[in-house]
């Protein structure tokens, strides 16, 4: 009986000791982990600080303006471009033509929607207004949309059936209206105009029809790569391939991405 009691207590003590031992090591482990995490947090905070500083540095309006002047055709906004909401007159009720009167060929869509792909259409729409000749009535005829647009379509359907504007000078238009083709143009092709300049030349022999787009050539915008129809589907990937390296090597060489180094170098220490 006495031996059993001893056994019981002894076992209990040993078990408690074991658990304590284990716990203590666990705690040590956790503490090390915590310290590591804390160090990491500090490090992250420091690099966040560096990134914030770099963001502000790169966002310096002086620099932005220089870049904008060099690479964009955008100009500072002028007061005349702003209108107060109440200055715009309400549309008179009788000026709205009933929808039935809309000519069947002209769908009630913005004329800029040239690339009907889901993702690209927005890009194209955003860029296209800068190209002045896209909507010029002279060389462009709207390819007739499928008849029967009388009833309103859901937006995606409408985009699919949107009339594709094709320059009249192009010989064929049959395969061009295929909207799926436009999807192949990657957004990588939409690089700044100046950066894309060499690609334009390399693409020209591949797509001889592009040469006929005389009015497009001088003021060509990147979106025209997306918008311009090419005669055969084969050259399209080439154009993309040619444009992609151009996108990687724009005329403007960004500085090395050693962000902290860049900043600290700017600090001008140890002068």
């Amino acid at each position: 009986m006495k031996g059993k009691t001893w056994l019981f207590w002894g076992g209990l003590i040993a078990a408690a000791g074991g658990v304590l031992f284990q716990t203590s090591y666990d705690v040590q482990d956790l503490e090390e982990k915590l310290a590591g995490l804390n160090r990491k947090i500090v490090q992250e905070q420091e690099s966040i600080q560096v990134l914030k500083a770099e963001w502000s540095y790169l966002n310096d309006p002086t620099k932005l303006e220089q870049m904008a002047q060099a690479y964009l055709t955008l100009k500072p906004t002028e007061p005349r471009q702003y209108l107060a909401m109440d200055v715009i007159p309400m549309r008179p009720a009788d000026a709205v033509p009933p929808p039935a009167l809309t000519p069947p060929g002209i769908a009630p869509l913005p004329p800029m929607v040239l690339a009907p792909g889901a993702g690209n259409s927005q890009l194209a729409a955003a860029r296209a207004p800068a190209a002045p000749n896209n909507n010029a009535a002279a060389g462009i005829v709207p390819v007739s949309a499928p008849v029967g647009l009388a009833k309103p379509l859901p937006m995606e359907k409408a985009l699919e059936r949107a009339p594709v504007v094709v320059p009249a000078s192009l010989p064929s238009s049959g395969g061009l209206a295929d909207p799926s083709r436009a999807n192949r143009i990657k957004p990588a092709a939409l690089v700044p105009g100046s950066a894309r300049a060499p690609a334009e030349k390399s693409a020209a022999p591949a797509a001889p029809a592009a040469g006929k787009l005389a009015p497009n050539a001088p003021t060509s915008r990147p979106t025209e790569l997306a918008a311009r129809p090419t005669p055969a589907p084969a050259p399209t990937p080439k154009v993309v391939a040619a444009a992609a390296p151009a996108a990687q090597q724009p005329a403007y060489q960004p500085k090395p991405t050693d962000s902290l180094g860049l900043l600290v170098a700017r600090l001008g220490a140890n002068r």
Partner: protein
Amino acid sequence: MNGHDHGGPAGYGQPGASTGSTYVPPPAPSPFPQPTPQPSAKPRTSLAVALEQSRYRLMVTAAVVTTVFTAISVKLAMATLLAGGGEPRPHVALEIGETTTNRADITDRNGNLLATSLVTQSLYADPKLVSRPEEAAQKLVSALPDLDYKDVLAKLSGDRRFVWLKRNLTPKQQAAVHRLGIPGVAFEQEERRFYPAGPLTAHIVGFTGIDNNGLAGMEQGFNKRLKEEPGTPLQLSIDLRLQHVLKKELTATVQEFSAIGAAGIVFDVRNGEVLAMVSLPDFDPQDPTGLNPETLFNRATLGVYEMGSTFKIFNSALAFDSGKIRVSDMFDAAHPVKIGRFTINDYHSLHRALTVAEVFQHSSNLGSVRMIQLIGVAAQKAFMTKMGFTRPTGLELPENGWPLVPNPWREINSYTISFGHGISVSPMHTVAAAASVINGGFFHKPTLLKRKAGDEIPTEQVVSRQTSDMMRRMFRFVVTEGTGKTAAVKGYLVGGKTGTADKQKGKHYEKNSRMSSFLGAFPMNDPRYIVYVLVDEPKGIARTGGFATGGTVGAPTVGRIIRQVGPLLNVPMLDENAPEILNSTYLNAAGSTNWQQSLPPVTAPPPSKGSTVASFPTQTKPR
């Protein structure tokens, strides 16, 4: 045996818990057997004494042991049960919002960083631990080419225990030095102040020294606050975009007119916030000492200048506020005013009497002097004091200029002050006072800190609403038909006042060095912002016909600035000829505010010769 057993312990009294270890064996059997077991008998001497002694000893030992054990258990209880003294501090996770730096960021009103602290590594050495200085120096110079070998060697072979070798290494440099593995050379984490906006806000933000103490600008003015609350950034009222526009246009003007400097301020008249403030030439806050120390001078707040004709704003406001003069009153501007040895004259005199509106429109010195003659010196002094021209502006910058005020304030002073000479104030003074003149009469202390949305704005009514209303019309009149036509921006209802002051060098006014300024405000039907430009010593160019006055230098600059700044400030465009706008801004040369009467332009046509350049330098000939 039993008898001994019984008798022995009986003499010990209570055997306590503590006596267990000090058990004294019962006395050995006595050689003399006890004849009778009589306890009450006379104690046997040796045994009794021994028993007595050992009892005392036991008692003392027990007491000592008890005390010690009690102390130990109390201490033990305290250490374990009560709040743990010896317990290691529990490890806690860092708070996420906490900053790692010791100095708060400074941001503009939109949260763009203007100053921040970055953690960098600095290289130091303990020369005692460097075993071979030559070799170490050689290695260090190869890794950090911008170090000088001799310099490093001298540092490494010195007998100090700590020398800086290079502060603020880049991570690449740090890795390179680390790879060398030189004993005695180590890194120390340091903070370095970094200014992402660079020179753009240099005069506002200021800069810090190597020990991160502010030495200029807000860094100095708020040094304590920045150190005490490193977690919360200090938000200024500055808008970086406006700052950029202001600086760009000022730089262009300085270049065009070959000026030696310029100052510009964009000011919110409704709450006294300074939205942009530029002083040219400026400096790089990263390296403020390397440049010409003159670039550190803040012309917008520290520099005090004779403002010239812009002071006619305050002269006119004083005239209206005194109640003695109305806008249609006529004043002689044909005959020079002589006082003592001075003669005050108009450069482009119109040789006739002018209304107050025309005095303002053509910036006539004579008219201004006649007006102050009517009002008196005391009233002028009181008014100028109320406008804040006799003390620093109270801006948060340490660079805050004291105005130069005449003492005593005599009649001749009052004459010259009426057209802006003889009193020198900083551009910030002028802007803050002008804001109070056109915003309904409320003087707001200018501030560089962003006001919180619900905060009460401390204010003081300095001129009446009627005065302020009339001054708005006068401002507008100068831009529609006066000296400031070039500042007009369609849709923004710009108003303003030109100023051209001859610079005083020693005791004389220089003929060809002047300060040209323009104080513009918009929209004048309900003024919101003041744009002020001051150009130091512009030279006349061919385009302006050789003139470099406030109307040819300052006004076009302000026009360009407003054109770009208006959309950013979200100021709505207005139709300048709409009846309700004309109702609130119209004024003609005769001093009438009724625009309907004068629809057919019957207002006194300004003589062509002085219309655009009438703010030509005021002449205070000290002959």
